[in-house]
Protein backbone atom coordinates (compact mmCIF):
# COMPACT_ATOMS: atom_id res chain seq x y z
CA UNK A 1 0.00 0.00 0.00
CA UNK A 2 1.49 3.32 -1.04
CA UNK A 3 -1.18 5.59 0.41
CA UNK A 4 -0.55 7.11 3.82
CA UNK A 5 -2.34 5.09 6.48
CA UNK A 6 -5.80 6.32 7.36
CA UNK A 7 -6.75 7.49 10.84
CA UNK A 8 -9.85 6.50 12.77
CA UNK A 9 -11.99 9.02 14.68
CA UNK A 10 -10.13 7.90 17.85
CA UNK A 11 -6.64 8.71 16.55
CA UNK A 12 -6.11 11.73 18.81
CA UNK A 13 -7.21 9.69 21.83
CA UNK A 14 -4.68 6.93 21.02
CA UNK A 15 -1.89 9.52 20.89
CA UNK A 16 -3.10 11.16 24.11
CA UNK A 17 -3.11 7.75 25.85
CA UNK A 18 0.44 6.97 24.67
CA UNK A 19 -0.54 4.35 22.07
CA UNK A 20 2.30 2.90 19.99
CA UNK A 21 0.92 3.42 16.49
CA UNK A 22 1.52 0.99 13.63
CA UNK A 23 0.19 0.58 10.10
CA UNK A 24 -2.40 -2.22 10.06
CA UNK A 25 -4.34 -2.96 6.86
CA UNK A 26 -3.82 0.64 5.75
CA UNK A 27 -4.87 2.12 9.09
CA UNK A 28 -2.77 3.82 11.74
CA UNK A 29 -3.72 1.80 14.83
CA UNK A 30 -2.39 1.35 18.37
CA UNK A 31 -0.60 -1.99 18.80
CA UNK A 32 -0.32 -1.31 22.52
CA UNK A 33 -0.46 1.41 25.17
CA UNK A 34 2.05 1.98 28.00
CA UNK A 35 0.46 -0.87 30.03
CA UNK A 36 1.84 -3.37 27.49
CA UNK A 37 0.29 -6.31 25.64
CA UNK A 38 0.39 -8.70 28.62
CA UNK A 39 -1.18 -6.20 30.98
CA UNK A 40 -3.84 -5.19 28.46
CA UNK A 41 -4.63 -8.84 27.76
CA UNK A 42 -5.07 -9.59 31.47
CA UNK A 43 -7.08 -6.38 31.94
CA UNK A 44 -9.57 -7.71 29.38
CA UNK A 45 -9.74 -11.19 30.92
CA UNK A 46 -10.13 -9.88 34.49
CA UNK A 47 -11.92 -6.51 34.18
CA UNK A 48 -12.63 -4.59 30.97
CA UNK A 49 -10.68 -3.21 28.04
CA UNK A 50 -11.58 -0.74 25.31
CA UNK A 51 -10.44 -1.39 21.73
CA UNK A 52 -10.76 0.86 18.69
CA UNK A 53 -12.04 -1.31 15.85
CA UNK A 54 -13.14 1.57 13.62
CA UNK A 55 -10.91 0.27 10.83
CA UNK A 56 -13.44 -2.47 10.21
CA UNK A 57 -16.04 -1.82 7.55
CA UNK A 58 -19.54 -0.91 8.75
CA UNK A 59 -22.17 -1.38 6.09
CA UNK A 60 -25.91 -0.79 5.94
CA UNK A 61 -28.08 -2.92 3.66
CA UNK A 62 -31.57 -1.71 2.79
CA UNK A 63 -34.13 -3.33 0.55
CA UNK A 64 -36.66 -6.12 0.29
CA UNK A 65 -35.74 -9.57 1.61
CA UNK A 66 -32.13 -8.68 2.41
CA UNK A 67 -31.72 -11.81 4.54
CA UNK A 68 -32.80 -14.11 1.69
CA UNK A 69 -30.48 -12.31 -0.73
CA UNK A 70 -27.51 -12.60 1.65
CA UNK A 71 -28.09 -16.36 1.58
CA UNK A 72 -26.98 -16.35 -2.07
CA UNK A 73 -23.52 -15.15 -0.93
CA UNK A 74 -23.20 -16.79 2.52
CA UNK A 75 -23.94 -20.29 3.86
CA UNK A 76 -25.69 -18.82 6.90
CA UNK A 77 -29.43 -18.77 7.55
CA UNK A 78 -29.88 -15.01 7.38
CA UNK A 79 -33.45 -15.16 6.08
CA UNK A 80 -34.67 -16.25 9.47
CA UNK A 81 -32.49 -13.88 11.49
CA UNK A 82 -34.83 -12.13 13.91
CA UNK A 83 -34.84 -8.39 14.48
CA UNK A 84 -32.31 -7.46 17.14
CA UNK A 85 -30.15 -10.53 16.52
CA UNK A 86 -26.62 -10.75 15.13
CA UNK A 87 -25.04 -13.78 13.47
CA UNK A 88 -21.44 -14.64 12.52
CA UNK A 89 -20.93 -15.73 8.94
CA UNK A 90 -18.74 -15.59 5.86
CA UNK A 91 -18.83 -14.96 2.14
CA UNK A 92 -17.82 -18.10 0.26
CA UNK A 93 -16.42 -18.33 -3.27
CA UNK A 94 -17.39 -20.80 -6.00
CA UNK A 95 -14.63 -23.16 -4.86
CA UNK A 96 -15.99 -23.24 -1.32
CA UNK A 97 -13.19 -21.04 0.08
CA UNK A 98 -13.84 -18.16 2.48
CA UNK A 99 -13.74 -14.67 0.94
CA UNK A 100 -14.14 -12.89 4.30
CA UNK A 101 -15.86 -13.41 7.60
CA UNK A 102 -18.42 -10.96 8.91
CA UNK A 103 -21.17 -10.22 11.40
CA UNK A 104 -24.69 -9.60 10.09
CA UNK A 105 -27.32 -7.98 12.33
CA UNK A 106 -31.02 -7.57 11.63
CA UNK A 107 -31.59 -3.95 12.68
CA UNK A 108 -35.31 -3.91 11.80
CA UNK A 109 -35.59 -1.49 8.89
CA UNK A 110 -32.14 -2.47 7.62
CA UNK A 111 -29.32 -4.98 8.05
CA UNK A 112 -26.05 -3.92 9.65
CA UNK A 113 -22.91 -5.73 8.48
CA UNK A 114 -19.34 -5.50 9.81
CA UNK A 115 -16.49 -6.78 7.62
CA UNK A 116 -12.71 -6.93 7.97
CA UNK A 117 -10.70 -3.74 7.41
CA UNK A 118 -8.44 -5.24 4.76
CA UNK A 119 -11.38 -6.55 2.71
CA UNK A 120 -13.70 -3.55 2.61
CA UNK A 121 -12.60 -2.92 -0.97
CA UNK A 122 -13.60 -6.48 -1.93
CA UNK A 123 -16.75 -6.97 0.12
CA UNK A 124 -18.59 -3.76 -0.69
CA UNK A 125 -18.40 -4.24 -4.50
CA UNK A 126 -19.19 -7.95 -4.00
CA UNK A 127 -22.42 -7.07 -2.21
CA UNK A 128 -23.28 -4.25 -4.66
CA UNK A 129 -22.80 -6.59 -7.63
CA UNK A 130 -24.73 -9.54 -6.22
CA UNK A 131 -27.48 -8.29 -3.93
CA UNK A 132 -30.14 -7.26 -6.47
CA UNK A 133 -32.38 -4.46 -5.30
CA UNK A 134 -30.38 -3.90 -2.14
CA UNK A 135 -28.90 -0.50 -1.36
CA UNK A 136 -25.36 -1.07 0.00
CA UNK A 137 -24.06 1.91 2.01
CA UNK A 138 -20.61 1.93 3.55
CA UNK A 139 -20.52 4.03 6.71
CA UNK A 140 -17.57 6.41 6.96
CA UNK A 141 -18.78 8.72 9.71
CA UNK A 142 -19.02 6.36 12.67
CA UNK A 143 -16.38 4.89 14.96
CA UNK A 144 -16.60 1.29 16.18
CA UNK A 145 -15.43 0.68 19.74
CA UNK A 146 -15.28 -2.67 21.54
CA UNK A 147 -15.62 -2.83 25.33
CA UNK A 148 -14.74 -6.37 26.35
CA UNK A 149 -14.28 -8.27 29.59
CA UNK A 150 -16.21 -9.55 32.60
CA UNK A 151 -16.76 -5.95 33.78
CA UNK A 152 -17.91 -4.72 30.35
CA UNK A 153 -21.57 -4.93 31.41
CA UNK A 154 -20.87 -2.58 34.31
CA UNK A 155 -18.73 -0.20 32.25
CA UNK A 156 -21.34 0.14 29.50
CA UNK A 157 -24.42 -0.53 31.64
CA UNK A 158 -23.76 2.34 34.03
CA UNK A 159 -24.03 4.72 31.08
CA UNK A 160 -26.67 2.78 29.20
CA UNK A 161 -29.00 0.46 31.18
CA UNK A 162 -30.38 -1.02 27.94
CA UNK A 163 -26.99 -2.64 27.34
CA UNK A 164 -27.47 -4.85 30.41
CA UNK A 165 -30.63 -6.33 28.88
CA UNK A 166 -28.88 -7.59 25.75
CA UNK A 167 -27.78 -11.21 25.54
CA UNK A 168 -24.85 -12.55 23.51
CA UNK A 169 -25.36 -11.81 19.78
CA UNK A 170 -28.14 -9.28 20.33
CA UNK A 171 -28.11 -5.68 19.11
CA UNK A 172 -30.05 -2.50 19.82
CA UNK A 173 -29.99 1.27 19.43
CA UNK A 174 -29.60 3.28 22.63
CA UNK A 175 -28.24 6.56 23.90
CA UNK A 176 -24.82 6.76 25.52
CA UNK A 177 -23.70 10.17 26.77
CA UNK A 178 -26.56 11.82 24.93
CA UNK A 179 -25.76 10.33 21.53
CA UNK A 180 -27.51 7.51 19.72
CA UNK A 181 -25.29 4.43 19.34
CA UNK A 182 -25.72 0.92 17.98
CA UNK A 183 -24.79 -1.49 20.75
CA UNK A 184 -24.17 -5.18 19.98
CA UNK A 185 -23.29 -7.75 22.61
CA UNK A 186 -20.46 -9.62 20.90
CA UNK A 187 -16.75 -9.34 20.28
CA UNK A 188 -13.49 -10.99 19.38
CA UNK A 189 -11.85 -11.74 22.72
CA UNK A 190 -13.78 -14.73 24.07
CA UNK A 191 -15.10 -12.49 26.85
CA UNK A 192 -18.50 -10.93 27.41
CA UNK A 193 -18.68 -7.44 25.96
CA UNK A 194 -19.99 -5.05 23.35
CA UNK A 195 -19.16 -3.50 20.02
CA UNK A 196 -20.56 0.02 19.87
CA UNK A 197 -20.98 2.10 16.72
CA UNK A 198 -20.70 5.80 17.61
CA UNK A 199 -21.03 8.94 15.44
CA UNK A 200 -17.46 10.10 14.79
CA UNK A 201 -17.90 13.55 16.31
CA UNK A 202 -18.75 11.96 19.67
CA UNK A 203 -16.44 8.95 19.50
CA UNK A 204 -13.63 10.26 21.72
CA UNK A 205 -16.02 11.77 24.25
CA UNK A 206 -18.04 8.53 24.60
CA UNK A 207 -14.84 6.41 24.72
CA UNK A 208 -13.59 8.60 27.55
CA UNK A 209 -16.84 7.98 29.43
CA UNK A 210 -16.05 4.24 29.28
CA UNK A 211 -12.41 4.81 30.23
CA UNK A 212 -13.48 6.91 33.22
CA UNK A 213 -14.73 3.68 34.82
CA UNK A 214 -12.11 2.31 37.25
CA UNK A 215 -12.29 -1.15 35.63
CA UNK A 216 -11.77 -0.06 32.00
CA UNK A 217 -8.39 0.55 30.32
CA UNK A 218 -7.45 0.93 26.65
CA UNK A 219 -6.00 -2.06 24.82
CA UNK A 220 -4.38 -2.33 21.39
CA UNK A 221 -4.18 -4.73 18.47
CA UNK A 222 -1.49 -6.81 20.20
CA UNK A 223 -3.79 -7.82 23.04
CA UNK A 224 -6.69 -8.21 20.62
CA UNK A 225 -4.68 -10.82 18.72
CA UNK A 226 -3.55 -12.82 21.78
CA UNK A 227 -7.08 -12.69 23.23
CA UNK A 228 -8.75 -13.99 20.07
CA UNK A 229 -6.12 -16.69 19.64
CA UNK A 230 -6.62 -18.00 23.19
CA UNK A 231 -10.38 -17.91 22.48
CA UNK A 232 -9.84 -20.07 19.37
CA UNK A 233 -11.26 -17.42 17.01
CA UNK A 234 -10.01 -17.36 13.41
CA UNK A 235 -8.20 -14.36 11.95
CA UNK A 236 -8.95 -13.81 8.27
CA UNK A 237 -5.73 -13.91 6.24
CA UNK A 238 -4.02 -16.14 8.82
CA UNK A 239 -6.34 -19.01 9.69
CA UNK A 240 -8.89 -18.69 6.91
CA UNK A 241 -8.60 -17.43 3.34
CA UNK A 242 -9.85 -17.90 -0.22
CA UNK A 243 -8.54 -21.47 -0.34
CA UNK A 244 -9.73 -22.79 3.03
CA UNK A 245 -13.25 -24.11 3.33
CA UNK A 246 -15.38 -23.53 6.43
CA UNK A 247 -15.29 -27.25 7.14
CA UNK A 248 -11.49 -27.34 7.07
CA UNK A 249 -11.52 -24.29 9.35
CA UNK A 250 -13.73 -26.10 11.90
CA UNK A 251 -16.46 -23.51 11.27
CA UNK A 252 -19.28 -25.93 10.44
CA UNK A 253 -21.00 -24.73 13.65
CA UNK A 254 -21.53 -21.40 11.86
CA UNK A 255 -23.54 -23.01 9.04
CA UNK A 256 -27.12 -23.59 10.13
CA UNK A 257 -28.82 -26.92 9.58
CA UNK A 258 -31.18 -25.75 6.83
CA UNK A 259 -28.33 -24.32 4.78
CA UNK A 260 -26.22 -27.47 5.23
CA UNK A 261 -29.08 -29.52 3.84
CA UNK A 262 -30.37 -27.18 1.13
CA UNK A 263 -27.13 -25.67 -0.14
CA UNK A 264 -27.71 -22.81 -2.57
CA UNK A 265 -24.63 -20.76 -1.67
CA UNK A 266 -21.30 -20.33 -3.51
CA UNK A 267 -19.14 -23.42 -3.16
CA UNK A 268 -21.99 -25.54 -1.79
CA UNK A 269 -20.81 -28.58 -3.75
CA UNK A 270 -17.46 -28.73 -1.95
CA UNK A 271 -18.81 -27.68 1.43
CA UNK A 272 -21.66 -30.23 1.41
CA UNK A 273 -19.26 -32.94 0.24
CA UNK A 274 -16.86 -32.13 3.08
CA UNK A 275 -19.73 -32.07 5.56
CA UNK A 276 -20.67 -35.58 4.46
CA UNK A 277 -17.23 -37.12 4.00
CA UNK A 278 -14.94 -34.90 6.06
CA UNK A 279 -12.27 -32.50 4.82
CA UNK A 280 -8.69 -33.55 4.06
CA UNK A 281 -7.25 -31.11 6.60
CA UNK A 282 -8.55 -29.49 9.74
CA UNK A 283 -7.78 -26.39 11.79
CA UNK A 284 -6.80 -27.39 15.31
CA UNK A 285 -5.39 -25.92 18.50
CA UNK A 286 -1.72 -26.64 19.11
CA UNK A 287 0.00 -26.35 22.49
CA UNK A 288 3.81 -26.29 22.33
CA UNK A 289 5.33 -28.08 25.33
CA UNK A 290 8.27 -25.69 25.73
CA UNK A 291 8.32 -21.91 25.97
CA UNK A 292 9.20 -21.09 22.36
CA UNK A 293 6.27 -19.51 20.51
CA UNK A 294 5.43 -21.19 17.19
CA UNK A 295 4.67 -18.43 14.67
CA UNK A 296 2.72 -18.42 11.41
CA UNK A 297 4.38 -20.67 8.82
CA UNK A 298 6.07 -23.09 11.23
CA UNK A 299 5.89 -26.66 9.87
CA UNK A 300 3.92 -29.26 11.83
CA UNK A 301 5.31 -32.81 11.63
CA UNK A 302 4.17 -36.14 12.95
CA UNK A 303 6.40 -37.80 15.53
CA UNK A 304 7.74 -39.95 12.70
CA UNK A 305 8.73 -36.86 10.70
CA UNK A 306 5.96 -36.62 8.09
CA UNK A 307 4.72 -33.14 7.24
CA UNK A 308 1.17 -32.69 8.56
CA UNK A 309 0.64 -28.98 7.89
CA UNK A 310 1.62 -25.56 9.16
CA UNK A 311 0.91 -23.08 11.93
CA UNK A 312 -1.44 -20.27 10.84
CA UNK A 313 -1.50 -18.23 14.09
CA UNK A 314 0.90 -18.50 16.99
CA UNK A 315 1.86 -16.34 19.89
CA UNK A 316 2.34 -16.28 23.63
CA UNK A 317 -0.93 -16.64 25.52
CA UNK A 318 -0.77 -14.42 28.60
CA UNK A 319 -3.73 -16.13 30.31
CA UNK A 320 -2.49 -19.62 29.40
CA UNK A 321 0.98 -18.56 30.56
CA UNK A 322 2.76 -20.14 27.61
CA UNK A 323 2.78 -20.37 23.84
CA UNK A 324 -0.46 -21.15 21.99
CA UNK A 325 -1.07 -21.73 18.30
CA UNK A 326 -3.54 -22.84 15.65
CA UNK A 327 -2.76 -24.59 12.42
CA UNK A 328 -3.92 -27.06 9.81
CA UNK A 329 -3.08 -30.75 10.02
CA UNK A 330 -4.10 -33.78 7.99
CA UNK A 331 -7.58 -34.77 9.18
CA UNK A 332 -6.52 -38.29 10.19
CA UNK A 333 -3.95 -36.76 12.57
CA UNK A 334 -6.20 -34.07 14.03
CA UNK A 335 -7.52 -35.75 17.19
CA UNK A 336 -6.93 -33.90 20.45
CA UNK A 337 -4.05 -35.50 22.30
CA UNK A 338 -2.02 -36.27 19.16
CA UNK A 339 1.68 -35.56 19.73
CA UNK A 340 3.38 -33.58 16.99
CA UNK A 341 6.65 -31.74 16.40
CA UNK A 342 6.93 -28.09 15.40
CA UNK A 343 9.98 -27.19 13.34
CA UNK A 344 11.09 -23.89 14.87
CA UNK A 345 14.32 -22.47 13.42
CA UNK A 346 15.30 -25.91 12.20
CA UNK A 347 14.74 -27.74 15.48
CA UNK A 348 11.86 -30.08 16.29
CA UNK A 349 9.93 -28.84 19.33
CA UNK A 350 7.33 -31.17 20.88
CA UNK A 351 3.71 -30.05 20.95
CA UNK A 352 0.23 -31.52 21.31
CA UNK A 353 -2.99 -31.05 19.39
CA UNK A 354 -5.61 -29.72 21.79
CA UNK A 355 -9.29 -28.83 21.70
CA UNK A 356 -10.09 -25.15 21.10
CA UNK A 357 -10.51 -22.75 22.77
CA UNK A 358 -7.46 -22.49 25.03
CA UNK A 359 -9.42 -20.27 27.42
CA UNK A 360 -13.11 -20.93 28.10
CA UNK A 361 -15.35 -18.43 26.35
CA UNK A 362 -17.28 -16.29 28.79
CA UNK A 363 -20.36 -15.10 26.88
CA UNK A 364 -23.65 -13.98 28.45
CA UNK A 365 -26.11 -16.30 26.75
Amino acid at each position, binding site marked *: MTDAPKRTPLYDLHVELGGKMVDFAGWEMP*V*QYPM*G*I*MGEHKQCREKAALFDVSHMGQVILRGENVGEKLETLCPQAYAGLKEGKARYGFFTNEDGGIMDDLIVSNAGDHYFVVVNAALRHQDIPHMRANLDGVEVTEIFDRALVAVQGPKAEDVVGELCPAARELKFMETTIAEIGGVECRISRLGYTGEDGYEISIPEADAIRVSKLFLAHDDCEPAGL*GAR*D*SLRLEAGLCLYGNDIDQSTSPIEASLSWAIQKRRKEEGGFPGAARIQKELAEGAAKKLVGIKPEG*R*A*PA*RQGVEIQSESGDTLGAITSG*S*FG*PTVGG*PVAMGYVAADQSAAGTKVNLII*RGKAQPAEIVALPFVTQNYKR
Partner: protein
Amino acid sequence: MATYYSEEHEWITVEGDVATLGITQHAADQLGEVVFVEQREAGEEFEKGGEIGVIESVKAASEIYAPLDGEVIEVNEALADNPGALNESPEGDAWIYKIKLSDASQLDDLMDLDGYKALIG
Protein backbone atom coordinates in the same frame (compact mmCIF):
# COMPACT_ATOMS: atom_id res chain seq x y z
CA MET B 1 36.26 -2.23 32.70
CA ALA B 2 35.01 -0.62 29.53
CA THR B 3 31.54 -0.82 27.98
CA TYR B 4 30.93 -0.81 24.24
CA TYR B 5 27.71 -0.64 22.20
CA SER B 6 26.73 -2.10 18.81
CA GLU B 7 24.36 -0.78 16.17
CA GLU B 8 22.23 -3.86 16.87
CA HIS B 9 21.57 -2.42 20.35
CA GLU B 10 23.85 -4.71 22.31
CA TRP B 11 26.23 -3.78 25.09
CA ILE B 12 29.56 -5.49 25.76
CA THR B 13 31.66 -5.02 28.89
CA VAL B 14 35.23 -6.27 28.71
CA GLU B 15 37.53 -7.50 31.45
CA GLY B 16 40.74 -8.96 30.06
CA ASP B 17 39.76 -11.20 27.13
CA VAL B 18 36.32 -12.03 28.56
CA ALA B 19 33.32 -9.96 27.52
CA THR B 20 29.77 -9.94 28.87
CA LEU B 21 27.05 -9.33 26.26
CA GLY B 22 23.47 -8.20 26.60
CA ILE B 23 20.85 -5.98 24.97
CA THR B 24 20.35 -2.34 25.85
CA GLN B 25 17.41 -0.93 27.78
CA HIS B 26 16.41 0.84 24.57
CA ALA B 27 16.28 -2.50 22.72
CA ALA B 28 14.29 -4.12 25.53
CA ASP B 29 11.79 -1.25 25.48
CA GLN B 30 11.37 -1.59 21.72
CA LEU B 31 10.86 -5.37 21.88
CA GLY B 32 8.13 -5.20 24.50
CA GLU B 33 7.52 -7.98 26.98
CA VAL B 34 9.98 -10.81 26.39
CA VAL B 35 8.45 -14.29 26.67
CA PHE B 36 11.26 -16.53 25.39
CA VAL B 37 15.00 -16.41 24.79
CA GLU B 38 16.79 -18.97 22.62
CA GLN B 39 20.48 -19.11 23.51
CA ARG B 40 23.53 -20.91 22.12
CA GLU B 41 25.45 -23.34 24.32
CA ALA B 42 28.79 -22.81 25.99
CA GLY B 43 31.61 -23.84 23.64
CA GLU B 44 29.96 -22.61 20.47
CA GLU B 45 32.06 -20.32 18.34
CA PHE B 46 30.62 -17.55 16.25
CA GLU B 47 31.62 -14.84 13.81
CA LYS B 48 30.82 -11.17 13.81
CA GLY B 49 27.42 -10.59 12.22
CA GLY B 50 26.25 -14.16 12.77
CA GLU B 51 22.97 -14.95 14.52
CA ILE B 52 23.64 -16.03 18.10
CA GLY B 53 20.16 -16.34 19.52
CA VAL B 54 16.56 -15.18 19.34
CA ILE B 55 14.48 -13.04 21.66
CA GLU B 56 10.71 -13.43 21.37
CA SER B 57 8.15 -10.95 22.59
CA VAL B 58 4.39 -11.57 22.56
CA LYS B 59 4.25 -10.14 19.04
CA ALA B 60 7.45 -11.13 17.26
CA ALA B 61 10.82 -12.89 17.17
CA SER B 62 14.03 -10.84 16.95
CA GLU B 63 17.48 -12.26 16.24
CA ILE B 64 20.57 -11.44 18.29
CA TYR B 65 23.60 -10.78 16.05
CA ALA B 66 27.18 -11.22 17.22
CA PRO B 67 28.93 -7.84 17.43
CA LEU B 68 32.35 -9.53 17.10
CA ASP B 69 34.06 -12.93 16.73
CA GLY B 70 34.26 -15.14 19.79
CA GLU B 71 33.26 -18.24 21.71
CA VAL B 72 30.45 -18.65 24.23
CA ILE B 73 31.96 -19.53 27.60
CA GLU B 74 28.93 -19.02 29.79
CA VAL B 75 25.18 -18.72 29.20
CA ASN B 76 22.85 -16.86 31.56
CA GLU B 77 20.64 -19.85 32.35
CA ALA B 78 18.28 -17.74 34.48
CA LEU B 79 16.73 -16.28 31.31
CA ALA B 80 15.21 -19.64 30.34
CA ASP B 81 12.87 -19.59 33.34
CA ASN B 82 12.55 -15.83 33.63
CA PRO B 83 12.77 -14.24 30.17
CA GLY B 84 10.94 -11.19 31.55
CA ALA B 85 14.18 -10.25 33.34
CA LEU B 86 15.29 -8.88 29.96
CA ASN B 87 12.72 -6.12 30.37
CA GLU B 88 13.58 -5.41 33.99
CA SER B 89 17.38 -5.34 33.98
CA PRO B 90 18.72 -5.87 30.45
CA GLU B 91 21.92 -4.00 31.32
CA GLY B 92 22.34 -5.75 34.67
CA ASP B 93 21.30 -9.24 35.85
CA ALA B 94 19.78 -10.15 32.49
CA TRP B 95 23.05 -10.39 30.55
CA ILE B 96 22.88 -13.05 27.84
CA TYR B 97 26.40 -14.48 27.31
CA LYS B 98 29.91 -14.33 28.58
CA ILE B 99 32.19 -14.70 25.59
CA LYS B 100 35.88 -15.14 24.92
CA LEU B 101 36.99 -12.60 22.34
CA SER B 102 38.92 -13.88 19.33
CA ASP B 103 40.14 -10.48 18.21
CA ALA B 104 40.08 -7.62 20.72
CA SER B 105 40.82 -5.13 17.95
CA GLN B 106 37.19 -5.59 16.74
CA LEU B 107 36.15 -3.58 19.79
CA ASP B 108 37.41 -0.51 17.97
CA ASP B 109 34.46 -0.86 15.55
CA LEU B 110 31.92 -0.48 18.38
CA MET B 111 30.53 2.69 19.95
CA ASP B 112 31.00 4.20 23.37
CA LEU B 113 28.01 5.36 25.42
CA ASP B 114 27.98 8.83 23.87
CA GLY B 115 28.04 7.33 20.38
CA TYR B 116 25.20 4.96 21.24
CA LYS B 117 23.10 7.73 22.77
CA ALA B 118 23.56 9.69 19.55
CA LEU B 119 22.40 6.63 17.55
CA ILE B 120 19.15 6.16 19.44
CA GLY B 121 18.49 9.88 19.64
